[in-house]
């Protein structure tokens, strides 16, 4: 099952690259840099999926105490942090030629950075507790709070930015006026989701085996 996922993911990624570079046209306003969006947008969507699973696993673990749920939460968090990091770095690299700066405290980048910090803290907590039962419990509490906090962070940062800067003309998400761009985004998103599923499957299996020894 895992292996099938792996091959599907690899195929998907190749298809995504082809779509992003071969099929999709060069964007009129931003030029080639816009192609980074085929990496950036699916990354952030995958990260959100991951953190949704962390929330699910956390609640389910507190309710049932079955270790499988905690394994889901921990694995999903790890991969989520990975994809969040990719989101931030790709967004930053996109920003340099577009806005002229490596970093800007715009609403989306800032929210994503806070998200990153929340779940790095989550992983840090997990690494500091050896007893799997305590680790699952504490991580679940942090996981739930972190996830529920996401919309609160989103609104607070958005309103905070509105104070300082009316609106950015270019958002990281281009309106897919061109259906080719939309399709390329979709293909890449599917590929990333498959990759996420593959990573998750492997990571959970490792966690299960490590707990047995």
């Amino acid at each position, binding site marked *: 099952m895992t292996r099938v996922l792996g091959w599907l993911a690899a195929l998907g990624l190749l298809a995504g690259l082809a779509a992003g570079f071969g099929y999709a046209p060069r964007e009129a306003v931003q030029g080639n840099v816009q192609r980074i969006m085929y990496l950036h947008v699916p990354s952030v969507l995958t990260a959100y999926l991951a953190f949704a699973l962390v929330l699910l696993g956390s609640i389910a673990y507190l309710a049932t105490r079955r270790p499988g749920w905690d394994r889901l939460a921990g694995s999903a968090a790890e991969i989520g942090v990975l994809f969040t990091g990719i989101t931030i770095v790709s967004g930053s690299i996109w920003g340099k030629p577009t806005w002229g700066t490596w970093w800007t405290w715009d609403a989306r980048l800032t929210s994503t950075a806070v998200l990153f910090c929340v779940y790095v803290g989550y992983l840090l907590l997990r690494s*500091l507790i050896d007893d799997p039962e305590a680790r699952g*419990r504490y991580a679940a509490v942090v996981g739930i*709070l*972190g996830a529920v906090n996401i919309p609160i962070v989103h609104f*607070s940062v958005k309103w905070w930015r509105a104070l300082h800067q009316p609106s950015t003309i270019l958002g990281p998400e281009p309106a897919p006026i061109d259906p080719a761009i939309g399709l390329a985004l979709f293909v890449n998103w599917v590929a990333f989701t498959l990759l996420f599923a593959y990573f998750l499957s492997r990571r959970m299996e490792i966690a299960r085996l490590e707990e047995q020894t």
Partner: protein
Amino acid sequence: MTYARRAWIIFYKDLLVERRSKEQTNALLFFCLLLLFLFQFALGPDRDRLTAALPGLLWLGFILAGLLGLGRSFLAERENDCWEGLRLTPGDKSAIYLGKLAGNCVLMSAVEVVLVVLFGVFYNVDLWTPAAPLTVVLALGTIGLASVGTLFAAMTTQVRARELLFPVLLLPVQVPVLLATVSATQALLLGQPLGDVAHWLKLLAGADAVYLTIGLLTFEFVLEG
């Protein structure tokens, strides 16, 4: 023994211990004085720059003091082997959370009053005129900080590297509280009425409600084991 009574006992015990020894409160209040110097030296002699940064500095001060003060919420129980006693308390454990939270709110309020007075005096800023609306913002911000801080303090008490882990866990969660309180305070210090910052107050109130609810619901899971 009713729920409210149990919460009250925890609150009263902490208050009594602190009033007798005064060790923690005194150190924390002295820390506030040190912060005053720190901010002055960091931002230099330029009065305007300091005044412009004042709302942020005020809340920075609260958060720094909060990191120190809140992190130690359960230290007394842990050091004196009372953790088991807390665990074995009959009934809803969230009463303990409420009691501890009340104590922490009182502590943070004392810190805030001191900081506001010190800022007003040493930085020559009029904090008396907007005092009433400022209190509202302070209250909402305190609940936001203390509600999560109390929960995480209980958690990190049992974990290695707790002095490092507590800030690392608490600060990202506090970002909305910080943004809201600083923005609201800034507006209030410019003389705007409370109504102008209503959206920030609503965000704070909403966040506080969420944090409190999660704290009440999950505290018992933290207390096990």
